[in-house]
C-alpha cells in the first residue's frame, strides 16, 4: 500500500492514516456519547489543548457544521448522547472534514446517508462535490444507487470481497450497474435444485404476518408445507419479521397470525444459538424438553434417544453426543441447531440466515433435509442473503427498509429481480 506514492515503512494504523491526511466516517458511529460535540472534535485533534481549547474546538466544529449542513440546530455544548441519530451522523461527518494541524487529503464515507433525511443527505452530497473540487478526494460507500450514479466520478463494484467492475461513472447507468453487481464469476456454486412447480394455496395458510414497518398492509403469507424465502440486503427487517412471527406463535395479534408451534434456527450461532457449556445432546434436546419430562425430571433416556436419532439423520460428526457442543466444527454446530428445531414438535421452522460460514457439503445435506421435511407438511420461513438458497424456496419476499417490496414466485425468481427490488428507491 502506498500513500502519496510513498510506501508505508512503519506499522500501519489509524493514527498513521490520520497523520497522512486520511479520515474515515464509520457507519457505527465513532463518537463518544458521554462527551459534548466540541469535546468529540478534540478527540481527533490532539493539537486542541491548553487554555481556551474548548472555545477553539467549539468554533471549529460549528463552522464546519454550518458549512455542510446549514440550519443544523446543533450546539457545541450538546451532549452527543442526547442528540438524535441523524444529528450524531452529521457531527461525525462534519468532524471528519475539520482541519487543524494535518492537512486533509482523503475522506472515506461508509454509508453516510443511511441515517440522514433527504434534505441533509442532499446537503452532504453537494458538499462532497464541493470539497472534491477543492482538491480533497472522497470514497463514498453506498447502497443507494442514485447517490453513486449522480455524485461519483468513478464507480468500483465489489462483491464477496472482490472488485468485479471498475469504470467511469458516466459509463454506467442504473441497469448496467445492477447487472454488474449480479454477474459474478460463479465458482463452487451449488447446482440449483430442480424447480418445483406447485400450485400455491392448495394447503391452508399457517402464517400471515404484516411487518411492523409495512405501510401498505402487504403481508407475508405461508401455506402449510411451503418453503418461503425472505430476501433483500442484510438487516432490512427480515430477522425482525421472523421474530415477530416467533412471538405471535400460538396467540394471534393484530399484525400476525400463526397456526401451530414454531421453532427458530439462529443465524448468529454463538450469540443466539448454542449453549456453550452444554453437551451436544442437551443442545439438541432443549426445544423438546417439555415432552421429555418424567416425574418432574428430565428423562435422560428420552433425551439420549432424540440425540442419537438426529445424529443419524443429520449426520452430526461426533464420537459422542455427550461431548461439549463447542467440540464440533461450525457446520456441525449448525446441524445440531437444525436438529433442535426439526426434532421438536414445531410445524413452522424459522431460519435466520442459518448457513453463514457453513461448508458446501453441509449446506447440500441440510437443503435436502429441508425439502424432505416440507414434503411432510412442515413450513419453512427462510431468511437468506444467498441467491442459491432462494432457489430452494417456493415463494420469495424481498425486503427493503423493514418492508416487503416485492414477492416472486419460483418461476419469476432471478437474481436481477431480487437486486432490482432491493435497491429500488422511493422516488
Amino acid at each position, binding site marked *: 500500500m502506498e500513500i502519496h506514492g510513498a510506501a508505508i515503512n512503519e506499522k500501519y494504523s489509524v493514527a498513521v492514516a490520520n497523520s497522512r491526511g486520511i479520515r474515515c466516517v464509520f457507519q457505527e458511529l465513532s*463518537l463518544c456519547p458521554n462527551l459534548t460535540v466540541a469535546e468529540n472534535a478534540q478527540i481527533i485533534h490532539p493539537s486542541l489543548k491548553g487554555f481556551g481549547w474548548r472555545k477553539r*474546538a467549539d468554533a471549529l466544529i460549528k463552522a464546519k457544521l454550518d458549512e455542510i449542513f446549514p440550519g443544523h440546530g446543533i450546539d457545541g455544548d450538546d451532549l452527543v*448522547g442526547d442528540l438524535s441519530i441523524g444529528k450524531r451522523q452529521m457531527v461525525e461527518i462534519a468532524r471528519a472534514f475539520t482541519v487543524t494541524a494535518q492537512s486533509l487529503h482523503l475522506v472515506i464515507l461508509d454509508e453516510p446517508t443511511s441515517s440522514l433525511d433527504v434534505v441533509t443527505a442532499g446537503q452532504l452530497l453537494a458538499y462532497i462535490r464541493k470539497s472534491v473540487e477543492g482538491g480533497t478526494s472522497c470514497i463514498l460507500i453506498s447502497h443507494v444507487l442514485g447517490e453513486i450514479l449522480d455524485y461519483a466520478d468513478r464507480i468500483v463494484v465489489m462483491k464477496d470481497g472482490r472488485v468485479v467492475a471498475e469504470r467511469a461513472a458516466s459509463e454506467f447507468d442504473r441497469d448496467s450497474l445492477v447487472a454488474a453487481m449480479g454477474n459474478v464469476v460463479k465458482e463452487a456454486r451449488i447446482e440449483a435444485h430442480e424447480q418445483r412447480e406447485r400450485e400455491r394455496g392448495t394447503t391452508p395458510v399457517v402464517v400471515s404476518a404484516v411487518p411492523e414497518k409495512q405501510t401498505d398492509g402487504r403481508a407475508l403469507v405461508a401455506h402449510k408445507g411451503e418453503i418461503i424465502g425472505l430476501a433483500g440486503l442484510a438487516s432490512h427487517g427480515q430477522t425482525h419479521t421472523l421474530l415477530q412471527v416467533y412471538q405471535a406463535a400460538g396467540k394471534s395479534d393484530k399484525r400476525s397470525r400463526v397456526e401451530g408451534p414454531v421453532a427458530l434456527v439462529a443465524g448468529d450461532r454463538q450469540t443466539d444459538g448454542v449453549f456453550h457449556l452444554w453437551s451436544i445432546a442437551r443442545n439438541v434436546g432443549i426445544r423438546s424438553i417439555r415432552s421429555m419430562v418424567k416425574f418432574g425430571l428430565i428423562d435422560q433416556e428420552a433425551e439420549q434417544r432424540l440425540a442419537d436419532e438426529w445424529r443419524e439423520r443429520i449426520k452430526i460428526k461426533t464420537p459422542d453426543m455427550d461431548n461439549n457442543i463447542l467440540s464440533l466444527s461450525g457446520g456441525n454446530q449448525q446441524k445440531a441447531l437444525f436438529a433442535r428445531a426439526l426434532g421438536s414438535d414445531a410445524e413452522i421452522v424459522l431460519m435466520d440466515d442459518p448457513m453463514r460460514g457453513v461448508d458446501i457439503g453441509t449446506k447440500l445435506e441440510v437443503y435436502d433435509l429441508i425439502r424432505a421435511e416440507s414434503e411432510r407438511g412442515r413450513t419453512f420461513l427462510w431468511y437468506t442473503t444467498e441467491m442459491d438458497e432462494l432457489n430452494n424456496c417456493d415463494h420469495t419476499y424481498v425486503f427493503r427498509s423493514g418492508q416487503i417490496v416485492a414477492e416472486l414466485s419460483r418461476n419469476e425468481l432471478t437474481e436481477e429481480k431480487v437486486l432490482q427490488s432491493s435497491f429500488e428507491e422511493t422516488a
Partner: protein
Amino acid sequence: MTIMERITNPRFLRSALPLASFAVLLSLIFYVQPRAMSYFGLNLMLQYAVPIALATIAQMFILTVNDLDLSIGAFVGLTASIGATLLADNPVVGVCALAACVAAYGAIGALIHWRNLPSIVVTLGMSFVWLGIAVIILPTPGGTSPAWIKAIMGLKVPYIPFPIIAAAVIAIVVQVLLMHTSYGATLRGAGGNPRAIERAGWSLLKIKIVMYSAAGFFGVLSGLSLIGLTSAADAHIADRYTLYSIAGVILGGGEFVGGRVSPVGAVIGALTLTLTGSFLIFLKISPDWQIGAQGAILIVVLALRALIKRREG
C-alpha cells in the same frame, strides 16, 4: 430558554439531583435536631466526609473507564496502616512505600487492559492482597499518625467548618482536571467509546494507567486523612469504604458504564452518605441499620433518576 424550561430540562435535573438529595437530608436533620445547625454540629457530623469523599473520587476514576474497584476499602486500610507506622517512624521510607502503592495501582490498570481481564475479579483479588500487607505492617490496631496530618485534619477555620472547605477543594480540583482540560475529555471519552478513542490515535493502555494511578493517589490521600482523624490505624479501618465509594459515585449522578461521571456530584454523594449516619442517630435508630438506610436512600435517588431518564428518552 425560559427559566422554567431550564429547570425542567432533564440534563439540568440530572445534575441537580445529588445536591437536592443532600439538601433534603440536611434539612431533615436540622428539623429533627435543630442544635446540629451550628459550626460545631456540622463539623462533628461531617468530619468523616473527607476520607470518604477522597475514596469516592478514587472509585470515580475507575468507573470513568468502565471498570469497578472492589479493593479501594482494603487499599485505604493499607495506606492508613502505612501512614500510622512507616510514615510516622521514618518519613522517607513512608513516602516511598506510599508511592509504591500508587505505582502498584497503575500497574494493575495496565494488567487489566493488557490481558483484557475483568476489573471486578482482579480488584477483588487485590483487596485480599492489600489487607494481607496491612495486617503484616500493623497486626493489631494501633500506631500513631504523624503530627502534621493531625494538624491539617484538625484545622479550625472561622465560620465554615473545615470538612466542607476540604470537600469543596477536592471537588473543584478534580472537576477542573477531569471535566475541563482537553486530556480530561479524552479520559472520559475512553469510557464512552473506547474504540473511537483508540482509532483517533490515543493509547488506551496509557489512559488506564493514568486513571488507576490517579485512583491510587486519591486512595493514599483518603487513608492519610482518615488517620488524621482517628490518630491511630487498623488494617480493617476502611473496609466499608468500597461500598461507600461506589454508592457515592452513583448517588452523585455517575453511571457504571459509559464514562458519565461528575466529580462535584461524587463528593456531594459522599457527604450525603456521611450524613445518613448522623440522621439515623438523631432519629434514635441503632447504627446497625445504617447500611440498610443508606441503601434505601440510594434506591430512592436512583428511582428518581430513572424517572428523569424516562422523560429524556
